[in-house]
């Protein structure tokens, strides 16, 4: 097996999982409109973890594919194919095991990782092999561009945080509720940051290839922003636990560190003109459209994240659908768009022209995602005011009155799923043409 095909195998496996997460997501979203649907078979209790786990596996497997594509182009001869194959086999075991346990209603895990902890073992082993592969493949004799640092960061921290995710198996942690919930939020926040490092690194790599200008990947400003991103990944997670009775300094650290994200927003606004001219320059490249879309969603999610990180506003947003909107905005708007850009760029010629139909499908995904996001934001605002009201009605009446927002969310989700489904099938049917 050549290492060239390896990236392709990972991305194609990830695309199959993407199709399944779309299916589970659509079915799960219907629970908001028809709560009794599938309640005795696969109600939300099963569909939600299926959807979430499939979404996480889609991101992790395609992030792996992006790194393999990049490593293959940079250090082709050094990839250990046997190790890569073992890593893939472990992932397949894990994915099959997780979905076997969900279909049999065997849970026992926690939010986002609801499967039996036994299936975390192959995931951890696969990641350790990936980490070893990375360090034995890259050259330490060259000056590293920022994307190599970002890949290293994502790979290294993922394994630490993933193990931390299972500290609850130790009674010392499990018997202390507040500490346990703190660590759970710490893990959820930082783990997303870890895979974001891999995908943002891939984005840098892609732009390096599209523009042919590699200076940016070595500039001091780029490194400063990378370290700021890493700083946030490591320390800003406690903006999720302002209401939790932890030590006060933990909450303040989260608040203060989160506010440094203003620098990212100011940088985006400062470079607005340059961004527009970049879009005009590369818009003929189909893959670039997904990068432009990811940049738009970065901007939108950054504003949302900054608002949510202020504790006074967080009181209104925490535990509401605004949090889901943020999660969907980042995993679909940013992560998925970067992955699709990488898929089109790595699996076809950059200047390949696509039919008008494919361009319409691209816009269908964007409109669908915006409707889904907006529906969740509106439902979240409504719930936020409900939970702050002194004369609030019952929870069920609040949910009933939120139905118009849920309808917008469900409709947006279906349009998005159709769009992503068509793109996914298109990519799956592509021949194994991978440039080196």
């Amino acid at each position, binding site marked *: 097996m050549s290492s060239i095909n390896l990236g392709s195998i990972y991305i194609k496996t990830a695309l199959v999982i993407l199709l399944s997460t779309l299916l589970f997501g659509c079915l799960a979203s219907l*629970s*908001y409109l028809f*709560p009794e649907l599938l*309640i*005795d078979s696969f*109600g*939300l*209790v*099963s569909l*939600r973890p299926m959807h979430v786990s499939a979404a996480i596996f889609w991101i992790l497997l395609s992030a792996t594919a992006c790194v393999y594509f990049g490593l293959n182009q940079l250090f082709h001869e050094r990839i250990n194919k046997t190790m890569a194959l073992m890593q893939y086999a472990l992932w397949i075991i894990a994915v099959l095991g997780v979905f076997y346990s969900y279909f049999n209603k065997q*849970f*026992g*895990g*926690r*939010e986002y990782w*609801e499967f039996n902890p036994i299936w975390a073992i192959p995931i951890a082993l696969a990641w350790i092999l990936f980490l070893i592969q990375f360090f034995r493949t890259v050259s330490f004799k060259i000056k590293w561009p920022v994307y190599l640092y970002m890949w290293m*960061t994502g790979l290294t921290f993922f394994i630490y945080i993933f193990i*931390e995710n299972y*500290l609850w198996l130790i009674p010392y942690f*499990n*018997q*202390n*509720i*507040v*500490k346990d*919930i*703190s660590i759970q*939020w710490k893990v959820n926040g930082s783990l997303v940051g870890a895979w974001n490092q891999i995908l943002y690194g891939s984005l840098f790599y892609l732009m390096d290839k599209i523009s042919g200008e590699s200076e940016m990947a070595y500039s001091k400003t780029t*490194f400063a922003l990378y*370290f700021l991103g*890493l*700083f946030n990944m*490591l*320390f800003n997670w406690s903006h*999720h*636990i*302002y*209401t*939790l*009775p*932890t*030590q*006060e300094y*933990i*909450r*303040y*650290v989260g*608040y203060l560190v989160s506010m440094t994200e203003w620098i990212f927003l100011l940088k985006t606004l400062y470079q607005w003109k340059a961004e527009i001219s970049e879009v005009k320059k590369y818009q003929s490249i189909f893959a670039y459209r997904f990068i432009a879309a990811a940049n738009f969603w970065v901007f939108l999610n950054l504003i949302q994240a900054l608002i949510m990180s*202020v504790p*006074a506003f*967080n*009181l*209104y947003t925490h*535990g*509401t*659908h605004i949090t*889901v909107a943020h999660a969907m905005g980042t995993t679909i708007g940013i992560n998925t768009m970067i992955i699709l850009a990488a898929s089109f760029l790595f699996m076809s010629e950059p200047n390949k022209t696509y039919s008008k139909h494919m361009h319409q499908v691209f816009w269908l995904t964007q409109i669908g995602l915006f409707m889904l996001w907006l529906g969740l934001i509106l439902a979240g605002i409504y719930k936020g005011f409900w*939970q702050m009201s002194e004369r609030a009605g019952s*929870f*069920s009446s609040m949910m009933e009155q939120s139905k118009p927002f849920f309808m917008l969310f469900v409709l947006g989700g279906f349009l998005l799923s159709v769009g992503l489904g068509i793109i996914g099938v298109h990519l799956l049917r592509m021949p194994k043409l991978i440039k080196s």
Partner: protein
Amino acid sequence: MKPILVFLILCLSYLYYSWSIYLSSSHSETDPKIAQVISQGKLVWQKYNCQSCHQIYGLGGYLGPDLTNYAGQSGDRKLFLSSAIKSAAQQMPSFNLSETELESLYQFLVSLNKSGIAQPKEFEVYPWGMIKPLKHEQY
């Protein structure tokens, strides 16, 4: 400064911060027997995937209410919990919990309620944006 040095400094700071959280003291049950029952209750919560629909301190699903302070509400909460779990409501499927599981789940919810407040309206806002509960000894 070389990028790898900055990276290592951040890594070490993160490890220090993480371990300070692992070793920190916070609300916990002092009686080991009760602590074990509560711990079992938490595992029951996970086993039946309650988090798919319900939240604890805002973490979890959105189809049902947050249950952090469920045990502190008026009425016989234990009886209500038992009937809600065993007889399917409109949105909620029925679950076949044993009496032991039900008891430990209830003790878990009682302990959660003692640990703090999850209702946002029970908090006040400082001028600099930070929040603090109006009254609770755990904060």
